[in-house]
Structures are given as structure tokens and as C-alpha cells.
């Protein structure tokens, strides 16, 4: 007997040798019922059973004395595989191991596991197969449930509306990517490849460094609306995408970091839509301002025209000088207004030195006509004299939107707009900050609505408002890391709204 052959003779049939086998168990009927030894005589094709066969096949052993009797009780789809496995074991003189279904008299299906090996005289061909069969239906149900759950998880992973990738090892090799990930970075092969090879453009944009950091420290990394420039096509055309994502460390059962899980949402469409909305709102604000500015320009121009006419009606030199002086003063008003209009539309790219006083006065010039016609008195006082370095167009837009809101909130007489600036310091960081306060004694905002005022399209002005003013302020504040607080009362004697914008003196 070959050594391999000899090893098969005892192991499957003698459960005492199985690892961790408890001999006491063997005598318990329920265990015995699910575990039956057998011997198949190759010459006579008879089967001898060593246990409760009925518990396996639903038939008593006297009905299963021949191999063909047993084969007919096996599910037709599995019969071929079982016979083939047994014959192969005999021919190869090797162990066989197969799982199959038995059909009971009541039609129920039971999963069985049979293991066996050929046996025979010391010299020559084997004359029998000996082994055991056990009922594995409960295990099979568990396996099927595990498989089902695995399939569900795979489907969820594949179809998730978020992009996902599982990276392994310090080289960040793609182990799994889902459909959304492939959609985000189309036309590339991922599995088994390193991130740096598949997405080389990620390197120059800091993403690889972030992955390294997460892999090394085990601290997850989250980012919102992070720009990602995807190279596209042969000419490396750039496609800008904005992503919300997290790099989550993957840990082994022993707690070691084995890779990084990438999970995120492509926010490109939304970010682009928001940018367009901000642009259109800026245009609308310009249109609104235009009529106010026209008024502010046309009045002094009319005065200039009148005084020039008057200067031409007299020969009295002092009188002419007086008319020309007034005309010149009126022209200065027009010049100032033209300058303010230009800076209002100028886009900031780099922070410049300015002051809250300068910015507030500039915006007030543009709104002077609207404020006067609305009967609003303006109290504009500044206690900060140190310079402010900021993106001035951002601050100007915030002031403009707040003043427009204040005017709309004060439809009645005796409206008062208060503008103040003070120096403050951040409690936590100790950073020197400046605070701009814009307050009105208008209608105020109901407490229940205060939490929604920064939402897009939320308005209390009905059809007169588009609900974008404060939302844009919120976006600007968020982008710059500034702070804004709103307090408001819409009843009682001290009605009105106070908005405080706090920003660092230097960015």
C-alpha cells in the first residue's frame, strides 16, 4: 500500500482520529443519526451501512443495500457527479469528497456530504470504498445564506450611488472598484494596479499624499467639494470634478492597517449649478442696482447741465465761479459713483488691504438713492482703524446684500440702518479679528424661520425675493472661513435684525 493510500484508510472512517473529536458525542443518537459509515464492495456493488441510514436518505438500510439503490435516491442533477467522483477515487486510488442532494420519500431535499477512500489488500487493486456520509443541510443553509448576503453586499457595492474603491497595501493597489467609481474615472483598468499608475494625475493634486497619511496614521480623511482635475483623452484635456469623499483606513482582524477604503460622492453638477446660480444672482443684483445708480448719476448730471447753463446767462464773474464750482462738485459725485460701481463688480482673486469703513462707505454710495427713497436714515460709524486684508469683493457683496435686505425689511417711515465695526479677538485662537455689524429696525424674522434663512431659495419677501441673497452670503462666509451671526425679533417694541460678520484682520 502506498503511503498516500494508507493514510486514507483510517482517517475518514475512524472519527476518533479527527481533530478535537469527542468520543462521547459519537454515542449521542442525534449525532449518530447524521453521521453514517459505509463500505461499498466494488466486486458485488453492495453497500454495508454502519448507522442510521434513514436519517440521511429517509429510507431504511434494507432498501439501500446496492449502490444503484443509493444512486436513485440522489437528486438527478447530482447523480453523475457522485458516480464520477467515486470512480475517480477507485481509478486514482485517492480520497473522494463530494456534496450532493438526497430526495426523501416525502420529496424534501437533504444535503449530504460523502467522503471515502479505496481500500483493499496490501498488494494489488482496491476491492472496496469505505467512508462516511453526513447530513450537512443546516450547514448548507448557512452557506447559502452567507452566499446570499455576500451577493447582496456585492450588489450594493456595485450599484451604490456613491463611488467606492478598496485599496490594499502601502502601494495602494486597487482590489475592488464599483460602477460609480468606473463612471467617475472612465476607460481605465483598476484591479491589481497601483493608484499612481491608474490615476497618475492624482499625484500632483495632493491625493496620494493624503492616502499615504491615512495608511500611515490610521486617521480617516474627509473632504467636501474637493476639486479633482481629471485628465481626459490623448491630449490630456482637463475635466474638473468636485468630490465629497472619505479615505477610511482598512484594518485586519488583528488591527493592523491593510489598506484604504475610498468612498465618496461626485458633486460636480451641484457645485457647477451653484456657481451658475451665484453668477445669475450677481447679475440680478446688478440689474437692481442699475436703476438706483442711474438715479444717482442722472441727478448730479442734471445739476451740472443746469449750472453750466446758468453760467452762460451772466457776465458776473463771481457768479460764474460759483456756478462752475457747484457744477464741479456735482461732477465729483458722478465720478465717485462710477468708481464705486466699477469696484463693486470687480472680482477678487487676491486679498488686498482695505478697511471695513472704506468698504461700507463704498456700498452705501451705491445704495444712497434706494435708502433715501425708502426714508431710511443711516448711522455709519467705525471704531476699527487698523487695516483689513481680505477679498474685498466678497465683503462688498455681503454688505450689499445685507443693506438690500435691510431696506426691504423697512418699508415704513423712520427706518434706521446702523453700521458699526469693532476690533475683536477670537477666543480660541487669539487671532485678531474685525466685526462688522449691520442692524435695522425693520420687520424682523420669526424665530421659527431663523434656522432656514441661509437656505437657497428661502425668502420672506414673497415674489419680490429670490431667496439667494443670504445663501450667497453664507457660501462666501463658509468659503473664507469667516463667521456670521444673525439675531432678530419680529414682535414687541425692539423689532429688527442684527447681523454680525466676523473676519480675521489678515487671512
Amino acid at each position, binding site marked *: 500500500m502506498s503511503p498516500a493510500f494508507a493514510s486514507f484508510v483510517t482517517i475518514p472512517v475512524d472519527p476518533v482520529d479527527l481533530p478535537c473529536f469527542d468520543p462521547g458525542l459519537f454515542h449521542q443518537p442525534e449525532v449518530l443519526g447524521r453521521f453514517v459509515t459505509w463500505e461499498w464492495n466494488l466486486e458485488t456493488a453492495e453497500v454495508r451501512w454502519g448507522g442510521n441510514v434513514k436519517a440521511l436518505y429517509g429510507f431504511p438500510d434494507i432498501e439501500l443495500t446496492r449502490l444503484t439503490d443509493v444512486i436513485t435516491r440522489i437528486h438527478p442533477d447530482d447523480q453523475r457527479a457522485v458516480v464520477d467522483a467515486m470512480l475517480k477515487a477507485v481509478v486514482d486510488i485517492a480520497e473522494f469528497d463530494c456534496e450532493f442532494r438526497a430526495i426523501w420519500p416525502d420529496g424534501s431535499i437533504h444535503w449530504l456530504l460523502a467522503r471515502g477512500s479505496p481500500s483493499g489488500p496490501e498488494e494489488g487493486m482496491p476491492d472496496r470504498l469505505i467512508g462516511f456520509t453526513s447530513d450537512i443541510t443546516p450547514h448548507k443553509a448557512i452557506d447559502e445564506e452567507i452566499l446570499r448576503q455576500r451577493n447582496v453586499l456585492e450588489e450594493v457595492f456595485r450599484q451604490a450611488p456613491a463611488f467606492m474603491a478598496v485599496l490594499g497595501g502601502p502601494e495602494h493597489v486597487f482590489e475592488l472598484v464599483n460602477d460609480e467609481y468606473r463612471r467617475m474615472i472612465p476607460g481605465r483598468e483598476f484591479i491589481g494596479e497601483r493608484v499612481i499608475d491608474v490615476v497618475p494625475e492624482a499625484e500632483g493634486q495632493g491625493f496620494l499624499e493624503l492616502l499615504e497619511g491615512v495608511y500611515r496614521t490610521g486617521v480617516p480623511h474627509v473632504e467636501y467639494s474637493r476639486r479633482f482635475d481629471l485628465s481626459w483623452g490623448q491630449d490630456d484635456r482637463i475635466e474638473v470634478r468636485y468630490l465629497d469623499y472619505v479615505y477610511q483606513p482598512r484594518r485586519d482582524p488583528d488591527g493592523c492597517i491593510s489598506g484604504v477604503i475610498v468612498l465618496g460622492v461626485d458633486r460636480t453638477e451641484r457645485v457647477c449649478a451653484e456657481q451658475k446660480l451665484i453668477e445669475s444672482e450677481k447679475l440680478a443684483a446688478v440689474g437692481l442696482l*442699475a*436703476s438706483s445708480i*442711474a*438715479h*444717482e*448719476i*442722472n*441727478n*448730479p*448730471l*442734471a*445739476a*451740472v*447741465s*443746469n*449750472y453750466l*447753463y*446758468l453760467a452762460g*446767462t451772466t457776465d458776473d464773474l463771481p457768479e460764474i465761479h460759483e456756478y462752475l464750482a*457747484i457744477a464741479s*462738485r*456735482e461732477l465729483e459725485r458722478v465720478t465717485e459713483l462710477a468708481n464705486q460701481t466699477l469696484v463693486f463688480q470687480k472680482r477678487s482673486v487676491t486679498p488686498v488691504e482695505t478697511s471695513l469703513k472704506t468698504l461700507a462707505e463704498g456700498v452705501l454710495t451705491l445704495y444712497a438713492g434706494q435708502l*433715501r*427713497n425708502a*426714508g431710511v436714515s443711516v448711522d455709519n460709524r467705525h471704531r476699527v482703524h487698523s487695516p483689513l486684508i481680505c477679498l474685498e469683493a466678497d465683503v462688498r457683496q455681503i454688505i450689499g446684500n445685507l443693506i438690500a435686505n435691510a431696506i426691504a425689511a423697512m418699508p415704513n*417711515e423712520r427706518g434706521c440702518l446702523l453700521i458699526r465695526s469693532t476690533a475683536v479677538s477670537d477666543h480660541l485662537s487669539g487671532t485678531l479679528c474685525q466685526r462688522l455689524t449691520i442692524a435695522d429696525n425693520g420687520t424682523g424674522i420669526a424665530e421659527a424661520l431663523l434656522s432656514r434663512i441661509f437656505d437657497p431659495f428661502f425668502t420672506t419677501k414673497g415674489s419680490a425675493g429670490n431667496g439667494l441673497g443670504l445663501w450667497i452670503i453664507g457660501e462666501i462666509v463658509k468659503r473664507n472661513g469667516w463667521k456670521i451671526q444673525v439675531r432678530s425679533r419680529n414682535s414687541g417694541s425692539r423689532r429688527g435684525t442684527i447681523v454680525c460678520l466676523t473676519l480675521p484682520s489678515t487671512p
Partner: protein
Amino acid sequence: MSKGEGPVKKVLVVDDEDSLRSSIGKILSLQRFEVSLAADVEEALERIAAEAFDLVLTDLRMPGPGDGLTVIQAARSRNPEVVAILMSAYASLGPPTVDPGMRPDAIVPKPFSIPSLLKLIRTQLDMRRSEPTPLLPVHKAAAAPFVVVQR
């Protein structure tokens, strides 16, 4: 008027812009009008209550309650023959007024040329003088040519 025909015409100039109000006032004084000035609607209504005017030149939007159309309505109910000219620095005048009593005889967008304003005033006053006193002044006012002077 410079032609020296008839009695001196009374004119009310209403504008919240000091420099505009006083310059128009001076120019019309030189044209031998008897000029009254008002800085807002309230003041204008006081002047109209005190005397009837032949000509009213008023701004459209001013601080305080009411606007130029309120002034025109008051001036016309005091003197149906009044020539009412509205001055506006805004590109548009907003919704057209339905009340004919508020309808100006002409609209002058700011800034305007003084000679063309004076010519307009003269034409409008001459039209009044050549027509008999209307029985239904409000209707006549509504049917009057609606002139917009170009800048």
C-alpha cells in the same frame, strides 16, 4: 415770460436734490417766472394749498410719503389748467398711472437740456392759452398730448 405777454406765471419746482431744485429755480426766475421751491411732497402740498400754480415741475420719487404724481394730482385739482411736467432720473416710470388726474403733460428724463425744457414749457403754456377753459378739465388733461422730451 420773456415775451412779456400776460401776467407773470407762477411755477412750483419740487425736487429733493438741493442743487437741482435751486438751479432750476434760478433758471426759471431768469425766464421771469415767479418761482416757489419744495424739497418733498409734503412741502409741495403746503405750497399748492396756499396758492394755485400755472406750472409744476416735479421729481417722481422723493423721500417721505407720496411722489411726483401726488403733487400733480393736487396741483391739478387746485388749478385744472396747470401744466404738469414730471422729471425723473429713473430709466422707467414704473406702472402707468390709471388716474388721468395724475397724468403729467410731459415727462422729462434727467439729465435734460435747459433750452429744450424751456421750449417745452413755452409750448405747453401756449397750448393752454389758445384753448378755451375746458368744461371737463380732467378729461382734457387725459387727452392732452403726452410728451416725452429726449435727453
